[in-house]
């Protein structure tokens, strides 16, 4: 069995990245938090990058939320975000501070939080 018939692009949205398939940064998770730096966008920024930057105008978004908002695959947003990070227009942070990744207290906070929402 060989590749897909006709060589149709998997998702046209990939064109949004100008043909770049892999982000220039190692790993942006679905829940990595993207925040605009406030630096004015330079002239000539590709439209898709500009759209992502605009979406971050009013606050931070996770990668997956930005993807839903812009109707792009997560993989495309990873590429766009990495390009904006290279231009110092966007900052990304990990979903959880690395030190807390296996903190048992985190689970307890989740449980307490769910209980609080349920009982209010």
């Amino acid at each position, binding site marked *: *069995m060989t*590749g*897909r018939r006709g060589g149709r692009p*998997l*998702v046209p949205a990939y064109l949004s990245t100008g043909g770049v398939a892999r982000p220039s940064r190692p790993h942006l*998770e*679905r*829940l990595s*938090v993207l925040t605009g730096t406030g630096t004015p966008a330079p002239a000539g920024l590709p439209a898709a990058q500009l759209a992502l930057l605009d979406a971050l105008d*009013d*606050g*931070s*978004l*996770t990668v*997956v*939320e930005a*993807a*839903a*908002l812009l*109707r792009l*695959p*997560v*993989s495309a947003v990873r590429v766009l975000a990495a390009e904006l990070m290279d231009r110092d227009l966007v900052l990304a942070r990990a*979903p*959880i*501070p690395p030190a*807390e990744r296996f903190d*048992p207290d*985190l*689970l*307890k*906070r*989740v*449980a*307490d*939080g*769910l*209980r*609080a*929402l*349920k009982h*209010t």
Partner: protein
Amino acid sequence: MAFAPSSTPSDTRARRTAGASEDIHLPATARDLVKILVAGPFGVGKTTLIDSVSEIRPLHTEEPLSEASARVDDLAGVRDKRTTTVAVDFGRISLPGGVVLYLFGTPGQERFRALWDDIAYGALGALVLVDGRRIDASFDVLGLVEETGLPYAVALNAFPDAPRHHTGEQLRAALDLAADTPMVTCDARDADSSFDALLALVQHLIDRHAPEGR
């Protein structure tokens, strides 16, 4: 009718902004972002459960499937065999204390393996939804969860016309669950019931980390 229609909207839903232009930006208090997979076959109620508890109307991303996936497609719920994407729903719950919990509705078929691995990366665990009318539809999901090594709990979504002759033990045996895997019954349409199912999972996660008991 087994379920009273909930006349009082849950707190979670009440906090949602009405109208089309919902603001989905993260609350400024958001600090720790965690995720739980809500896994199960098509039509088991994943999106319903997420909708019940999410503070935002559930969003979705269109995820490309791998070629290997696309080729074996005869899946119910995705009519067009040339379809090369699958929609993945997700919702969000901001908890007191800066924790934001994301719920990802994850289709659990082997052909979604690459997508599954990407979504499962860093997840706390999985809530596996089971439909009592077609238990075997959940076998794939359970296999995938166990392969991934994600801790999980099982929630039987109580569809009104589901057979009631199952005892808990029969169902556990049919699903081949380990003795310490929690199994609860829930109504995915009901926020409190869905919160309870999530709590059963999170309590299980806590217990695993504290083998000496609480």
